């Protein structure tokens, strides 16, 4: 069996006396879509921050393609191709869609000057093909003129366009309209075929169940469930997310 793309072992995070994450281990396979579920305060966000290198873990080991990574920080995750789309603050509102899509990865000539026409054309394609976004007239629009859902969709389109190896989506569907959500979920499925792994962090079990190969449920900083889609059901996930380990045990005993 080939090595998992990212394997984390025994990750813990303490903020002072508070243990936010307690000995969490799991794997993300290549081309796998993993749903990271859990109620507020379950430790999802902290886990996302640790995986994207923004926050240091207190303890734990990380393996990328089977090789140990000494420290997950921004430089390392950038090099490995981990891209996180945080709930907000993914885009610069005062800049155009094109400039946001190519921010930090500008298409330039060898003197560093941007090829605006090419970038605009590619941005228009990205907007057309990656995530169908209602109501965007032109990639020359400023992001501040977009709705929250549209802006979110642009951020996703950007990450998808640059084909990062691991995409972490933090509540991407929370602000999207129904059609945009469908488009996004469809694209996650498509990503699988291209070997891009993704982690979908969400409250919406139905969205997760639709696209995820595997579901990890967190509760009070612990992993309480890690099941392939075939082995679980929306009902079981609901029990685990809402009632924690107790609910899961009761569901499995048939008394939920």
């Amino acid at each position: 069996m080939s090595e998992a793309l990212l394997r984390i072992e025994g990750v813990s995070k303490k903020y002072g006396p508070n243990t936010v994450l307690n000995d969490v281990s799991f794997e993300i396979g290549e081309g796998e879509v993993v749903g990271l579920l859990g109620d507020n305060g379950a430790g999802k966000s902290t886990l996302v921050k640790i995986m994207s290198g923004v926050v240091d873990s207190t303890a734990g080991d990380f393996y990328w393609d089977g090789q140990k990574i000494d420290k997950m920080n921004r430089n390392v995750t950038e090099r490995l191709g981990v891209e996180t789309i945080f709930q907000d603050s993914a885009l610069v509102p005062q800049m155009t869609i094109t400039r946001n899509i190519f921010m930090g990865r500008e298409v330039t000539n060898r003197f560093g000057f941007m090829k605006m026409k090419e970038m605009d054309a590619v941005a228009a394609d990205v907007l057309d093909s990656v995530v169908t976004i209602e109501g965007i007239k032109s990639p020359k629009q400023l992001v501040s003129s977009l709705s929250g859902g549209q802006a979110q969709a642009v951020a996703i389109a950007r990450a998808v366009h640059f084909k990062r190896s691991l995409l972490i989506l933090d509540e991407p569907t929370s602000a999207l309209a129904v059609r945009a959500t469908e488009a996004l979920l469809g694209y996650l499925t498509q990503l699988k075929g291209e070997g891009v792994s993704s982690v979908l962090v969400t409250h919406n079990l139905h969205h997760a169940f639709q696209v995820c190969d595997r579901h990890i449920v967190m509760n009070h900083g612990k992993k309480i469930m890690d099941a392939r889609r075939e082995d679980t059901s929306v009902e079981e996930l609901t029990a685990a997310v809402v009632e924690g380990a107790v609910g899961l045990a009761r569901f499995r005993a048939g008394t939920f």
Partner: protein
Amino acid sequence: MSDTPPGRRGPILEVPLPTEAISVRRKPAGEPESFFGRMNYNLQFIRGRGALEISIVLVVLLAGYVIASLISPTGFAFLNPNNLSGVISQSVPVLAILGLAAGILMISGEFDLSLGANITLSAIVFIKTSEAAGLWLGIAAGIGTGVAVALINGIIVVYTKIPSFIATLGMSFFWMGAGIFINGTSPAALTTSREGTMEYLFAHNFGSFRSQLVWLLIIGVLAWFFMHRHKLGNHIFAVGGNPAAAEAISIKTKRVKLMSFAIFGGLVGFAAILIAVRTSSIQPGGTATEDFTLFAIAAAVVGGTSLTGGRGSVIGIIVGAALIELIRNGLLLAKAPGFYITLFVGVTIVIAAIFNKLMEGKAR
């Protein structure tokens, strides 16, 4: 990016550009075909980004001045060649270059209130070095001082995370004192070294224009291409607009801010040379150069630069500087007492700031 990640994958951060799309140079969907249609279409993306509105104000004001001057050539001598050359070739370029300095730094989300003190210090170093060691070393020393002063301010701001307002306000007194420390309290003056190349380069009167205007054109074009077409300029906008988003996409925000401080310092050092050559002498601790601090920020704000960063344009800033100088000139020509001038400039700045706030919402 050249490092390969461990494991079987090659470098991942490649741009998968659909090259067919590029070769066709497809226009974004919805863009009209006819000339006027396209003009209209493009106009809606320029609206509210700073430069357009303020340019209209400038044109209206200019038209008013020209009419007034034609009606009364002696009472309002705006079109008098001496006046034109003085305003357009001397006052506007210096303020515009300083406005660009302050504006670029503001776009990155920072201020430098030691601008005036930086001018004084850089000008003194320029004067002393060129008197002692010749023009070219003088120019290098003057600009170098500007960059060094701004970079020290920048390092303090970026690494201690003190608001730049406070840090550079404090440093402003330090640099003012440094000017007196190296020069003493008597003015530093250019003597024989001013003649010839130096005068020709920085203050020569070519009849209808002066050297300063040429410098503004060169710097303006360079600044426009750098800020609006170069990726580093793009990073400055990104860092000022939303540092978290820039950081998330692996733009080094600290480095970008330090670069903005350095550019600021270079432009201030250059403007200091223009001022020194024009006036031939600089008074350490004097208010003449101190005034430029707020006027430069004012030019940037009037030109549509956001006080919170991320928004602004090179053309807008230059037009903003021109507008302030024209208002100043108009009041002088109308023989308004000196203190009215600051009064009117103050009102202009506040109105411009309100106007910008309103336009920010309209930008699309």
